[in-house]
């Protein structure tokens, strides 16, 4: 589904990703952990198509598409979703209106019939019920004045509504209390399926108690230096990232 090979990325002239490789198959949940400054958020942003990142080498295939050639909205319509570390507040744009516009733009891209207001609201109510989210978020402007927890809840709600093939969660756990964290995890677990994959980027192991990954990768200094199963996350929790120091030199690729 997602195949990243030898990805090199520069930001403002500085190389952040230095030959990252990662393969994600349908149904899998991959966790990417790593110290601050390792390039975790850069990876999420590059995959979603944010401007300001210069790709100097490498390829990213998403399904049968060259992901790096697509506009951000095309990537979304192809089924890629990025849950933002810092969801953007957009006063003056109603959340429901925005989501309907987003969903219908994606459907149009995929040559599917657009939903009218009734069909859309029916779908919204269904998703809200499953996620145990109240509908008060819908009537407000996008993330505007939302608490940290509400913003992340809104990200998960968007993900549920847009039903991506691949969801990337960029430090969705940062700044969340345990209840909000569980809500995020429930949302993800509910959506896990044989066709859908997740890449969970996190600094802490805590989230992985609730979203149990199939694979854990350690990202340090712009490349994946260690891969394993969920026990790797526990090892990191106990030993910190310091033990990775000796592991930075060997050329290793991801799974």
């Amino acid at each position, binding site marked *: 589904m997602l195949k990243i090979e030898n990805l090199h990325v520069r930001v403002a002239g500085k190389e952040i990703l230095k030959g990252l490789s990662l393969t994600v198959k349908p149904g899998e949940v991959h966790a990417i952990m790593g110290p601050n400054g390792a390039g975790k958020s850069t990876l999420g942003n590059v995959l*979603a198509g944010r401007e300001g990142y210069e790709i100097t080498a490498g390829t990213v295939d998403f399904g049968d598409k060259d992901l790096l050639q697509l506009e*951000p909205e095309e990537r979304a*319509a192809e089924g890629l*979703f*990025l849950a933002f570390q810092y969801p953007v507040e*957009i006063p003056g744009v109603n959340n429901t209106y*925005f989501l309907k*516009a987003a*969903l219908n733009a994606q459907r149009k*891209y995929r040559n599917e019939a657009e939903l009218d207001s009734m069909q859309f609201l029916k779908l919204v109510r269904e998703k809200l019920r499953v996620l145990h989210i109240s509908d008060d978020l819908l009537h407000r402007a996008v993330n505007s004045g939302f608490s940290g927890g509400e913003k992340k809840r809104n990200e998960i709600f968007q993900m549920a509504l847009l039903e991506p093939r691949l969801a990337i969660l960029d430090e969705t756990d940062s700044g969340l209390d345990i209840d909000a964290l569980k809500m995020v995890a429930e949302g993800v677990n509910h959506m896990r399926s044989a066709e859908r994959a997740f890449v969970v980027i996190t600094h802490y192991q805590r989230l992985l108690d609730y979203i149990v990954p199939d694979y854990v990768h350690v990202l340090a200094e712009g490349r994946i230096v260690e891969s394993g199963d969920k026990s790797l996350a526990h090892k990191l929790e106990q030993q910190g990232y310091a033990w990775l120091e000796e592991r930075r030199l060997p050329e290793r690729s991801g799974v």
Partner: protein
Amino acid sequence: MSVPLLASLEQAFAQLPAAALQAAQLGESRRTHLAAALADGLPTARAERWRYTPLRALERRPFVTAAALAEIDPAVLPAGEGPRLVFVNGVFAAAHSRLDGLPAGVELLPLSQALLGADARDLAHLARRFDASDDTFARLNAAFALDGLVLRVAAGTRCEQPVTVVMVGAPTTTDIAVHLRHLVDIGEGASLRLVEHQLSAGAQAHLVNSLCHVHLKPGARLSHLRVQCEDVAATLFTRTEGVLAGAAEYQRADLELGAALSRHELNIALQGNGARLRSNGVLLADGRRHLDTRLGIDHIARDTRCELTWRGLGADRGRAVFHGGILIRAGADGTSAQLSNKNLLLSPHAEIDTQPVLEIHADEVQASHGATVGQLDANALFYLRSRGVGEAQARTLLTLAFCRVALDDLDDDALREQIDALLAARLPEVAA
């Protein structure tokens, strides 16, 4: 050196019916104003108040006065029920107006009728002087205006239904100059909603010079929406002179969406203690449009408040000029004044000029002003696109959201939706 515009108006004045000019004993005042306008000429860029709005192209154009009522297609008029006054090329159009079924205590009639049954006391504002040498358009208005809106609300009357006034520009063979003079007088403790439309019934390049007096008695409330959607070739000079008595509340929103040149001077005197003004607006300067809004807010009494929220868009080769002048006079203690003017520059060829000017002579005053010029937020744009919204639609959504802030105060949902639709229809080409 003779200025064609003024020479053509001098000629037009001579052809106006003598009886109409003399009505309510205003003949002398009209001639005095015309003489002053002709003597001082059109304002030039040397006048500080006109620095950003040159009139060199305009002054070369002659205009005539509308001879008769022009036919219009009623479909151009805004939808909606309720009392309505319509002027076509400055002439009262009875057939399109609705004056029956007015609530008790609300008097609504065209100025041309009010002048005939003149009560000198009520019309005292018509003889008002305009002493500044660059008050040319106010002087011309005082000389020429034979019609307009007269709206009086008796003390204690609460009118639920909005009153609408529509100024329609209809195509003619020769460009015409239209002068309208409006009077809105809200009695003590009374309240009313007024909606003003300036629009076009076809391609025309008229000059519309209107002057509106707004008087709010103690405790009166007026909500006033003005939507300017004039033809792309039209020239507008609009002047609002408001006087607010104690505890009066004036809330207005101005949408400048049309015309080639539209200059609005909004002068509000907060004369009574506790008077309050909320004035919001949107200047949509796309194409080659030149929009100039000049606020002159005068805090005279204690504990007066103004909140001014204005948004400007500069697209294509458009130009938006905003001057936010706030004067807090000695003795106007406890006054609060807030001005926010944010602008989006959507094209490298567009221009925004914003100038907040705060002059304070009182103590215990809270005053703040902010003016910014920027681009759409790249983070917000990426956020919307990352969810699948195409770039053009995302830009439109954000631009609309930027303007909406100025409409938040509109307490009429139907009106807000109408305005929203109007903006939404215009913005895709602006934001693209």
